Structure formats: structure tokens, C-alpha cells
């Protein structure tokens, strides 16, 4: 696996500002998700939501290297991807509450946030449901020669869906600028991935000729460094890549998944939180390298907190769509 340590040259290229920005992004995502959990427990949010807490370094590390007009597709666990690509928390919360001000005017909800302004082709509630869409966006980028790259985020559970292999084959045959970012957080819902996944995950990419790498998904600098190489490669027309990001979700499969003992131990959860937390790892590095002082990080944290709190308030106060809107947007 690639770790930042192994590639100082990557670090040398990146500026302190980048890591401060990454810190801010990861903190915002975490605070956002904590609020989502809170909205659920306070019965203010309809339905369920899948929290990204613990996996922040993957979305942030990858999106940090993308252009605003690059494309991403996301999953049922998509809040982190959307925020990392530039979505604003207030309209995200509004969508989660089914409000008119939401990114999808309330029609999509937590699993369908989409936003052309930030190149977000949409979160998707079908496992592997967006792999075709991401590959198609890369196809457009190649046909239109606009230099864009598409990143397809998906969980390791999506490795069970055959369509993933169909599109990886197409992407490699046609040298499409698409990165398949596999977030292995160890579980498909309530089942450990080892019970559902034969062979080596990285071999799933190489089997179709894709340039394939694995990275520590808790180390935002490592993710960024690796993603940067793969994205630049794709932009140069050298073809798609498969990037395995090893990570972990701290919470349940969704906000309602409270008692998890039957499928994983508290001890396992504790270890990841204590030893592999992406925000903590970046903080320690930033302070250890004396690149920032605690005061700055505290200020960023409190700024983020007030932004998120304001966003929640905005969403709660926002109006629902007019009933007539139910018939709108079926056809363009």
C-alpha cells in the first residue's frame, strides 16, 4: 500500500494551505454527519441516512486534486463526497429534510444529492448504480476533449455487481479518463466483505487491464498523492485507474443501525477510532511538523461548527415544496 511516508516528493509538492483546507473539509464533513445523526434521533429527518464518519480522508483526499468541472458520482453514503466536491451544507441539509431549498428541491433526499455546479452527477441508492454514469461522463470528456476526469466512488460491496466489470472493461478499451475509487470500509451492510469477496480486491482492477493502486484511506496525504498521480495520468489520456482505499465507517450502516455486536466488535471500532482516525492523523502530522499551531485548528473547528449549525437552522426553517411540484421534472 502507498503511504505518504513512502512518497515525500508528493508532500513537497503540496502546500500547507492544502492540508489546512483538507483539515477544514474533513472537520466539516464530520460535523455535518454528526448533525445528521442528531436530526435522525430527534426525529426531524424523514427516512434514514448513511454516515460517512471515519472515511473523510478518502473523499477529501481525492476531491482535493480534482478541478471544479471534473465529475464525480457518489453512493448511498454520499454526503462526504458531495461536500468534498464543494456542495454547501445548508442546501444539503435542506435536501435531507425534503425542503424546496435542497439541491434536488426535496425530490432526492439523502441518497440522491446531485449538483451540476460542482460536477456532482449524483449520489445513487443502487449499489454500483453510478458506475455506468461515471464511465459515460468520462466518455463525454474524451469525445468533447474538454480535459475533464470522472471519479466514481463506490463501496467494496459494489464489487458484487457485474456491471462494474462491464464498464471497467469499456473504460480500459477506450482509454477513458475515469478513476474507480473503491472505499473498502470492511462491511457490506452487516456482512464482512471477506464473506462476499473472493480473491484480491486489487486484482479486480488489473484483470481488466486498469492501472491499479491501493492506499491507506485514513491518511489524507497518501490518498491525495496517489489520486493526483492517477488523475493526471487519466487527464493525459493514459486511461482509467482503479484505486482501492482502505477505510472504516465508525457508525452503523445507517443511522438506525445501533446494536452492531452481532457483526462487529466494539473493540474493532475503538481501535480504528483511536489509532486510525483521519482527522487525528492529519492533526498530529500538522502539529508535529510545526506547520500549524493548535489555535489555528481550534479556530477552523469553531468556524466549521458555526457554519454547520447555521446550515441546519436554515434547513429546518426552509419551506417544503408546493404539492404541485410532485408532477414537475418527470420529463425535461
Amino acid at each position, binding site marked *: 500500500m502507498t503511504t505518504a511516508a513512502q512518497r515525500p516528493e508528493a508532500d513537497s509538492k503540496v502546500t500547507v494551505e492544502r492540508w489546512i483546507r483538507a483539515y477544514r473539509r474533513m472537520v466539516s464533513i464530520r460535523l455535518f454527519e454528526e448533525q445528521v445523526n442528531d436530526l435522525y434521533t430527534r426525529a426531524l429527518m424523514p427516512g*434514514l441516512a448513511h454516515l460517512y464518519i471515519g472515511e473523510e480522508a478518502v473523499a477529501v483526499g481525492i476531491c482535493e486534486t480534482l478541478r471544479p468541472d471534473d465529475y464525480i458520482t457518489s453512493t448511498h453514503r454520499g454526503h462526504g463526497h458531495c461536500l468534498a466536491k464543494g456542495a454547501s451544507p445548508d442546501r444539503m441539509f435542506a435536501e435531507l429534510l*425534503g425542503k424546496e431549498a435542497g439541491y434536488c428541491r426535496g*425530490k*432526492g433526499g439523502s441518497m440522491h444529492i446531485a449538483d451540476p455546479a460542482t460536477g456532482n452527477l449524483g449520489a445513487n441508492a443502487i449499489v454500483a448504480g453510478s458506475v455506468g454514469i461515471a464511465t459515460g461522463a468520462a466518455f463525454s470528456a474524451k469525445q468533447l476533449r474538454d480535459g475533464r476526469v470522472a471519479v466514481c466512488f463506490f463501496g467494496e460491496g459494489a464489487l458484487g455487481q*457485474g456491471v462494474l466489470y462491464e464498464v471497467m472493461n469499456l473504460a480500459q478499451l477506450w482509454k477513458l479518463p475515469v478513476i474507480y475509487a473503491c472505499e473498502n470500509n470492511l462491511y*457490506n*451492510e452487516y456482512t464482512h466483505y471477506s464473506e462476499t469477496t473472493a480473491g484480491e480486491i486489487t486484482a479486480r482492477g488489473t484483470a481488466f487491464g486498469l492501472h491499479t493502486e491501493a492506499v491507506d484511506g485514513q491518511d489524507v496525504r497518501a490518498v491525495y498523492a496517489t489520486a493526483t498521480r492517477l488523475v493526471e495520468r487519466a487527464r493525459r489520456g493514459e486511461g482509467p485507474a482503479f484505486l482501492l482505499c482502505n477505510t472504516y465507517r465508525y457508525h452503523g450502516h445507517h443511522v438506525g443501525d445501533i446494536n452492531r455486536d*452481532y457483526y462487529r466488535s466494539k473493540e474493532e471500532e475503538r481501535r480504528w477510532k483511536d489509532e486510525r482516525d483521519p482527522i487525528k492523523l492529519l492533526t498530529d502530522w500538522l502539529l508535529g511538523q510545526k506547520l500549524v499551531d493548535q489555535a489555528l485548528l481550534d479556530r477552523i473547528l469553531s468556524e466549521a461548527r458555526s457554519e454547520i449549525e447555521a446550515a441546519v437552522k436554515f434547513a429546518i426553517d426552509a419551506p*417544503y415544496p408546493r404539492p404541485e411540484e410532485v408532477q414537475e421534472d*418527470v420529463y425535461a
Partner: protein
Amino acid sequence: MPEPRELTFAQAIREALAEEMRRDSHVCILGEDVAEAGTPFKVLSGLLEEFGTDRVLDTPISEAGFTGLAVGAAMTGLRPVVDIMFGDFITLTMDQMVNQAAKVHYMSGGKWNVPMVMRTTLGATRRSAAQHSQSLHAWFSHVPGLKVVLPSTPYDAKGLLKTAIRDQNPVVFFEDKMMYKLKGPVPEEEYTIPFGVADIKRAGRDITIVATSSMLQVALGAATLLQKEEISAEVIDPRTTWPLDEKALIESAQKTSRVIVVDEGYGRYGVTAEIASVIAEGAFYELDAPVKRMGAMHVPIPFSPPLEDTTVPTENSVFEVARELCGRS
């Protein structure tokens, strides 16, 4: 005499599976998170403990793959019951079910059988948005070689599922995910319910409401409202869309002369169209008014509660249509 035993819809499903798995060692269950988790809806809780990992198998997220595997397993001696978590995901299994399962018996000149069951869900209003709220049973009802079951009560669920598991053909069994907690009487004694036999859930004189699955409770509620206006509604549930009990539906229509068909699938090109056509033809000379169809609004199901709630028929909307059909206003 003692109170009849009550079970929830989910318990009735589980009991049917457990009884059939005890009766026949060839019955096994395949699906995502069906074992330890007992499905996200907890419908299968306890089956793993009783029957073990050889007969209750967690699969990868490969709906096409494990459905196809079940087709082959059914052809070679097993009676697999596959679990497709949300009915929206049958989109991934259409080739296995329609080009394979449904046709194997016919294409082989009757040589191979496919005794498998696909259990899946239907129904909206769970705030799950467009990809987790569809009721797509019309598709399978359209396909020769398949049988399609739509239970509306715990009693029917248990009896029909046992029949499905014993059937020699591929059967698709749709469960309303909002109904799992609904309670109803289910006798201790063994029983099965034959396919193709509609059930009159409430007898009436003035109007027939044909209702399936999730819409049965809605129809019964509407019937109660109608009662207050001295309109006597008959509520009939075909229980299986294929085979379809045309005779019972037509006879009810001939008796009441007014009909509403309510089903949670999309209104257009859906189950209501077939049932309405069968009745309009069979009771042509007795009908006093056109057969009315009520289904899901022709839109992808929206997430926002105030929008989603307008997309499916309700007690009140059925009541209003019925009143009008009976010339009240």
C-alpha cells in the same frame, strides 16, 4: 372458544419459511444479509440459528448472480427461496427470471423444472425515494412461465408462501415493506392457500373495490367511510395476479355494477389495466359506470414527505372516487 392467535405479517412469512424448511430439506434461502442480520426488515431472524449456514446463505450484492444460481439449483433438486431486498432491484434480475427461469420448462419441452421462489418487496411512503419505493409486479405478471403473488394479510402471506415454495414453477412473491408489522389472525394448524383464488375481504352490494397487497387496508378503510354514507362496498383481493381469478372478479362486478381497481404499481400499463380490462369485458352488460383505476402517480417516487404522500391512493382518495362513481356529490 380461545382467541385466534395473532401474528405480524413478518412473523407469518418467517413461520411459512420455517415450516417448509422443516418439511423439506431441499428448501434453502439465499440473499443479502439474510443470515446473521435476518434481513434489514428482520423478517428472517432466527432462521439461521435453526437451519444453519448451509440453508440460510448470505450472498454478495449480486442480484443477477444469485438469482441465476437459484435457477440452476432449482433445476437440479433444490427449492431455493431468493431474497431481493427491495423490489426496485428486480431490475437486475430480469434476464435470469424472464429469459431463463420463466422459459426453461417450456424451451426444454417440459423436461426441466424451476421450482424457485423470489421474495421481494413493494410499496412507497417509507421516505426511501425513487430507487427504493417502486411496485414493479406488473412486469412479472406480463411474463408467461412466472406466477406472481401479492399477499395482503398475515394469514394470506403464510398460506400463499407455503404454496409458492411447493409450486413446481418460478414464483415471485411481493411483500409490502410497510406491512411487516401489521398483525392478523394466523391459525396454529397447517394450511396452504391455492393460487388463482380471489378472496372477498368484505362483502358488499353497491360497488366493488378490487385491491391488492398494500392497497387492501386502504380499500377496507374506504369501505368503512362509504358505509357511513350508506354505500355498501365489496372489497375483493385477487391475491395472485397470475394465475388471475377472472371469474370471481367479474362476478363481483356483475353483482355491484360499479368497480374501482386499486394497486400500488404505477397506474399506466400496470396491473390495474389488466384487471380493469378483464372486468370491462366480462361484465360489459352489467356495468353502470366505467371501471375506475387507481395506482401510483406516474412519477418517480419523490423523497419529500408532502410530495410522496400525494403519489399513492389513500382511504380518502378511494372513498371520493367511489362516492362519485355511485353518483353522490
